[in-house]
């Protein structure tokens, strides 16, 4: 009886140990690199806060949000099948949706009943001058009106008036202004996508404005 319990405990401990090592599989030990041992080693892991590399376009039963116990999940179309042949990108769905629509790879309806209705496209670029050293932002109405209607953004999210909108990256990251869509459903905000908006280089003679503190007490 005692042996039975001990073996059960050992088996569970082994299971936890193995599953523990499985959970850290994101950073496998590199050959020739000594891994630190002892009490503090787990606190000093490499890339502590960098989340595990995403598996690209997994089928619904394996994607971690669909319940594989639901039979209908296995009927759903796997995204990788639908994305075959579409222009690629390096973030989001790994599909460049704007290129897909411009290149005629997809022809999404503008009216839910009538496939012949053409979108109301407006070609107008809005340039927003950025205070800091980042390239200025060019907002293209053309690509946005291909997908959206004016009323989706105006006047609730953006007041259609020059200099009437205060936009900054913190607000966008928290889901305001451009962040209502970007970072959620349209292309995400990563270091790889900055230049999609910040696309107009500063003039050659541009210098970053000096902060008040450095003007008051210049560095000697």
């Amino acid at each position, binding site marked *: 009886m005692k*042996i*039975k*319990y001990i*073996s*059960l405990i*050992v*088996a569970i401990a*082994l*299971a*936890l140990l*193995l*599953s523990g090592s*499985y959970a850290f599989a994101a950073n496998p030990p590199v050959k020739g690199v000594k891994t630190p041992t002892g009490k503090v080693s787990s606190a000093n892991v490499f890339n502590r*806060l960098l989340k*595990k590399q*995403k598996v690209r*376009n*997994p089928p*619904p039963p394996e*994607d*971690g*949000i*669909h*319940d594989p116990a*639901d*039979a*209908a*999940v296995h*009927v*759903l*179309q796997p*995204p990788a099948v639908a*994305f075959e042949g579409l222009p690629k990108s390096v*973030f*989001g*769905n790994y*599909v460049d949706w704007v290129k897909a629509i411009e290149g005629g790879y*997809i022809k*999404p*309806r*503008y009216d*839910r009943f009538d496939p012949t209705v053409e*979108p109301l496209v407006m070609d107008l670029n809005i340039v927003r001058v950025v205070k800091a050293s980042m390239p200025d932002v060019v907002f293209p109405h053309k690509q946005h009106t*291909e997908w*959206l*209607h004016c*009323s*989706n953004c105006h006047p609730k999210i953006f007041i259609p008036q020059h200099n009437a909108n205060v936009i900054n990256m913190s607000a966008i*990251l*928290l*889901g*305001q202004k451009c*962040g*209502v869509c*970007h*970072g*959620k459903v349209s292309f*995400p*905000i*990563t270091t790889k996508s900055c230049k999609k908006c910040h696309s107009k280089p500063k003039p050659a003679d541009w210098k970053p404005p000096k902060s008040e503190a450095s003007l008051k007490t210049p560095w000697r």
Partner: protein
Amino acid sequence: MYKSALIGLLGMFAVLALPQAAHAEYADVIINNYADAAGMRPVVFPHWYHRIRFRCKVCHADLGFKFKAGGNKITMAKIIDGKFCGACHNGEISWSVENCGMCHSGIPGTPTHIDGSTVQRLVAPTYKALEKPIQQK
């Protein structure tokens, strides 16, 4: 003894088989306003599938879907009245509501959120005062 070892082994496989961190398709929306409380799986809405067939304008301007996960308070009663999803999922434009499991396909207990959103990927907790947290039942 072998029996308990076997139980332990099975337990190990159960732990290994647990879903790892979600890596679903970007912009998949999980809607769980009422589903869990009603004993249904939460709804998973795939943006990628719908945007191949419809432009944003169709749902977000014509049908009145707000740009907010869980903000539309969709119920089955509204859907069978032809509102929200029911504007297309009516057996005419797309398959009808008897296919419960096609939408109600999320892992039970998953809160309403947009999978893989930038806010979700932030390492530090986000400043909450700007936005009211989604009320969960």
